[in-house]
């Protein structure tokens, strides 16, 4: 089965630093997502992206976050000035078409630790 690839698998950073989390969605997919899971909490939606723009975002996705699809394959999440509470597992996901019946394909996640 095709896979969503995320790099790095672990990222450690100092508070206040910028981080970029990278994802390669499945090649023919058109809808891209970032989710995160703080330890012991629910997996939370951050943002969805289609046609080179954000289509939906949650309250969590404030001005310190941004997403980009810099080329035809990568999809990145940038956190401008990390805070301790940004420590979480970040999942990238993609799907081929819109609609609530369509399944999401998830990557294996990037564990971000902010010190």
């Amino acid at each position, binding site marked *: 089965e095709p896979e969503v690839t995320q790099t790095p698998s672990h990222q450690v950073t100092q508070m206040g630093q910028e981080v970029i989390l990278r994802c390669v969605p499945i090649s023919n997919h058109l809808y891209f997502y970032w*989710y995160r899971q703080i330890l012991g909490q629910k997996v939370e939606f951050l943002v969805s992206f289609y046609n080179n723009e954000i289509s939906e975002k949650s309250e969590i996705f404030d001005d310190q976050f941004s997403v980009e699809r810099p080329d035809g394959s990568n999809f990145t999440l940038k956190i401008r000035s990390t805070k301790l509470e940004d420590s979480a597992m970040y999942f990238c996901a993609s799907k081929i078409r819109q609609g609530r019946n369509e399944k999401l394909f998830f990557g294996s996640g990037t564990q971000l630790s902010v010190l």
Partner: protein
Amino acid sequence: AQSVTQLDSHVSVSEGTPVLLRCNYSSSYSPSLFWYVQHPNKGLQLLLKYTSAATLVKGINGFEAEFKKSETSFHLTKPSAHMSDAAEYFCVVSGGATGNQFYFGTGTSLTVIP
């Protein structure tokens, strides 16, 4: 609004015995429901989905789930647990303005005892 509640944070079963992971949902319309599994250091893998066709849904690895509208439930079952089933399981409902948001339960950690 859409949400799911997973009633057990941890479930422990003996190998070869049945598995039951419970999920209740809340949805303002006919929901699409999913079960995902996460093995250590792996991504979230789809086990099965319900999309208003048959109420009993069969998934991979012998898992199935039954959609019960009267009980607003979508419990995951397997007749006989295998050691490789030990993982974290998430019940998910889709929704949002475009149907593109997935709402996760808090997860159930399944332990299989040899």
